[in-house]
C-alpha cells in the first residue's frame, strides 16, 4: 500500500551565510517561541522552571519578561497532570508548548503521552486534533548518570501518533520549532543539551550559528545533507551530526570523502534522502546516541535494505551499546558515539 506523502521536493529556506547574526540553539528556540506567541495568543508555555528560571537548559529564558506568568506558566512537579492539561487545552484549540526537562523523566507520565496525546486524533477518526509541542532535553556526555543522560528519541518514534523532531543547529532549531508550534499534530521536540550553546557546558562550535530574524519554517520530515561526500554516508542526528562533521573534515585531508545526512526529524523519516545518499556512496554508517538495539539505527538500515538492498556494500552502527549511561567520564565516553568511534567506523568502511 502506498503511504508516502512527503515525496515532492520542496525548496528549503536558505540558511544564511556565516557572518550574519548568530544565535545559540537555545536563543533560537526562545526566539521561535516568542515570535509565535506574539502572533497567536493561543500559544502558551507550561512546565517545570520555565518561568523566572528560564528553563533548565535555557529553552524559555526571557519569555516570562515579555509574556508574564499567565502565558509562561511554572507547574508543580506533576507531569501527568500538566502534560494532560496541555492535551486538554490543545483539544479545545489552544497551542500549548509543554516542557518536561529531561526525556529520562517521561516514564512518570508516559500514559498521557502515548495513550492520549498521540492517539486522540486517530481514535477520533480525525475529528479531534491535538496541536501541542512537547519539548525536552536529551543526551549525555557530562556525567549526569543513567537517569539524566538518555536520548530515547527512538522510543517516541516507535510509538505512532507523535511527530518527533531532533534539531542539531540553531537555524534548524528555530525553523523546526516554528513548524512544530504551527503544526496541527502533537510534536515531540527533543533538543540535545550539547547543541544548545550553554555557557556551562562543553561548547560545540556549531551550537552557535547564523539565524534569520524573521519567522520561518524548516519543514518537519525533510533531512538535510549537512556535508556532501562520495565514499561513505553517515546518517545521524543531533549532537552526533557535529561529531560526524568534525570527523569528515579531518578525513578529507586524507582523501576520504564523507557525506553526512542530518535527519532533523524521526517522524516523519526522510527515507528518500537516506536512499539517495547511499546510492552515491554504497557505504552506510548510522551514528545514534540512543541505544543500539530496536531503534533508529536499525530503522535507517532497514529503510535501505527494504528498498534497494543491492546498494549496500557496507553497513555499520555507532550507537550506545545497550547499556545504561555510566557516571564516570571514562566509562561514559567508552559507550557514547564519540568522534574517535565514528572515525574508526569510517576507516573500516572505506577499507572494505
Amino acid at each position, binding site marked *: 500500500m502506498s503511504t508516502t506523502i512527503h515525496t515532492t521536493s520542496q525548496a528549503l529556506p536558505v540558511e544564511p551565510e556565516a557572518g550574519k547574526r548568530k544565535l545559540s540553539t537555545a536563543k533560537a528556540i526562545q526566539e521561535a517561541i516568542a515570535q509565535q506567541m506574539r502572533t497567536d495568543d493561543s500559544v502558551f508555555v507550561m512546565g517545570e522552571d520555565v518561568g523566572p528560571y528560564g528553563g533548565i537548559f535555557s529553552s524559555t529564558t526571557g519569555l516570562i519578561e515579555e509574556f508574564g506568568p499567565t502565558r509562561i506558566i511554572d507547574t508543580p512537579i506533576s507531569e501527568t497532570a500538566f502534560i494532560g492539561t*496541555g492535551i486538554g487545552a490543545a483539544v479545545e484549540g489552544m497551542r500549548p508548548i509543554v516542557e518536561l526537562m529531561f526525556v529520562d523523566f517521561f516514564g512518570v507520565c508516559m500514559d498521557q503521552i502515548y495513550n492520549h496525546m498521540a492517539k486522540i486524533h486517530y481514535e477520533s477518526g480525525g475529528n479531534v486534533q491535538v496541536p501541542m509541542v512537547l519539548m525536552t532535553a536529551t543526551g549525555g556526555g557530562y556525567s549526569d548518570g543513567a537517569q539524566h543522560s538518555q536520548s530515547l528519541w527512538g522510543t517516541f518514534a516507535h510509538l505512532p501518533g507523535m511527530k518527533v523532531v531532533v534539531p542539531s543547529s540553531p537555524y534548524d532549531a528555530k525553523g523546526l520549532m516554528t513548524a512544530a508550534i504551527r*503544526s496541527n499534530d502533537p510534536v515531540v521536540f527533543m533538543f540535545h543539551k550539547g547543541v544548545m550553546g550553554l555557557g556551562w557546558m562543553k561548547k560545540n562550535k556549531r551550537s552557535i550559528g547564523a539565524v534569520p530574524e524573521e519567522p520561518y519554517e524548516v519543514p518537519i520530515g525533510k533531512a538535510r545533507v549537512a556535508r556532501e561526500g562520495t565514499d561513505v554516508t553517515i546518517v545521524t542526528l543531533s549532537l552526533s551530526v557535529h561529531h560526524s562533521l568534525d570527523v569528515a573534515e579531518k578525513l578529507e585531508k586524507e582523501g576520504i570523502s564523507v557525506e553526512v545526512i542530518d535527519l532533523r526529524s524521526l517522524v516523519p523519516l526522510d527515507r528518500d534522502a537516506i536512499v539517495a545518499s547511499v546510492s552515491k556512496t554504497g557505504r552506510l554508517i548510522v551514528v545514534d546516541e540512543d541505544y543500539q538495539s530496536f531503534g533508529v539505527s536499525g530503522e535507517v538500515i532497514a529503510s535501505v535494505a527494504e528498498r534497494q538492498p543491492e546498494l549496500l556494500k557496507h553497513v555499520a552502527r555507532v550507537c550506545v551499546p545497550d547499556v545504561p549511561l555510566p557516571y564516570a567520564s571514562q566509562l561514559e565516553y567508552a559507550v557514547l558515539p564519540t568522534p574517535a568511534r565514528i572515525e574508526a567506523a569510517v576507516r573500516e568502511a572505506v577499507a572494505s
Partner: protein
Amino acid sequence: MTLYPELTDDKRREMLTTMVLIRTYEEAILREYHADKSPGFDIGAGLVPGEMHLSAGQEPVAAGLGLHLTKDDAMTASHRLHHVAIAKGVRLREMTAEIFGRETGLGRGRGGHMHLFDPETHFSCSGIVGEGLPPALGQAFAFQRRGTDRVAVAVAGEGAANQGAFHESLNLAALWKLPVVFVIEDNDWGISVPRAQSTSVTSNAVRGAAYGMPGIRVEENSVEGVYEAAGEAIARARAGEGPSLIEVHTLRLWGHFEGDAQGYRTDLEGVPGRDPLPTYKNTLTSLGLITDSDYAAMQSSASELVEDAIDFAKESPTPNPADALKYVFAEGALS
C-alpha cells in the same frame, strides 16, 4: 430515598427519562453484544466485538449530572461510560455506530466503545484508569483562559482515586482554581477487588480536604443527591471558585465486563433490591408525578431512540481496510 426539596416535577421526570434511556440502551447493547458470540463465548466475534463495560445501575450519576451541563461544557469519562455519554448528549447514532465499528461512528471505527470522542459535545473517554482526569484540567484551563463560565467534569471509578493521576489532578486543579468537577463513581468493586481492600479511607470524598476543595459523598445511589451535589459543585466552578470532588455510592448491576461471571461477588444477593431504576420510578409514582402508563411511554420512546441508533449502526458501512492508516496525523507523515 432522600429527596432534594428544590427539584421541580419536570426535572424529576426528566431525570427518570434519562435513566430509562440509559437502561434501555445498555440492555440493547447487551442483547446485540451476546447475539452472535455463542456457542462458546468468543470476545472478538460478532457485530460488537471486544470488551464491553456496561453501566446499568449507575444511571443516577449520569442523570443527576447531565441536567446541569450544556453542550459547551466538557466531560471526560472512564472505560464505563455509556451512561454519562448519553446524559451529556453525545449523538446516539454516531456513538452506537462507533461501538459497532462502523465508518459513520464517532471515530470512524478507530476508537471503539472505550475511546469515544464527540467534539460537538466536548465528550471524551479513556480506557486507562484515572488517566482521563488530566485532560479535563486542560479543557477547564482553556475555558478559564477564554473568560467563559464553561466547566469540565471528570468522571472516574473509585479505583482511579488510588492512582497518581487523581492526586496530581486534584492538586493542580485546586492550585489554579480550574473550573473542574471530579466525580468518583464508587460501585464497590475494582473489577474483582472490593473497595475495602484497595482504599485506605471509607469515603474518597474526604480526600478533597487534602487538596483544599470541597468533597461530598452521595449515598444510596440517589439521583436527587447527585443532582444537588453536582448543582453546587458546577455552580461553584462556573463562578470561578475552583474545583470540587463528588463521590457517589452507586451500583454495578452487572459484571465488570460482559462475560464476567462475577464469582468473586459477595453482594450479589442484595443487588436487585438496590436497582435504582425501580426505586426512583416508585418514588415518583408515590409522589404522584408519574403513572404506570407514563412510565411505559418513557420506555417505549427510549426504545424507539435506541433501536433507531442500532439500526443506523447496523446499516452503516464498515470501514475500508485500505484506510486503516488514515488519521494517524492531521498532516501527512507516514512514509
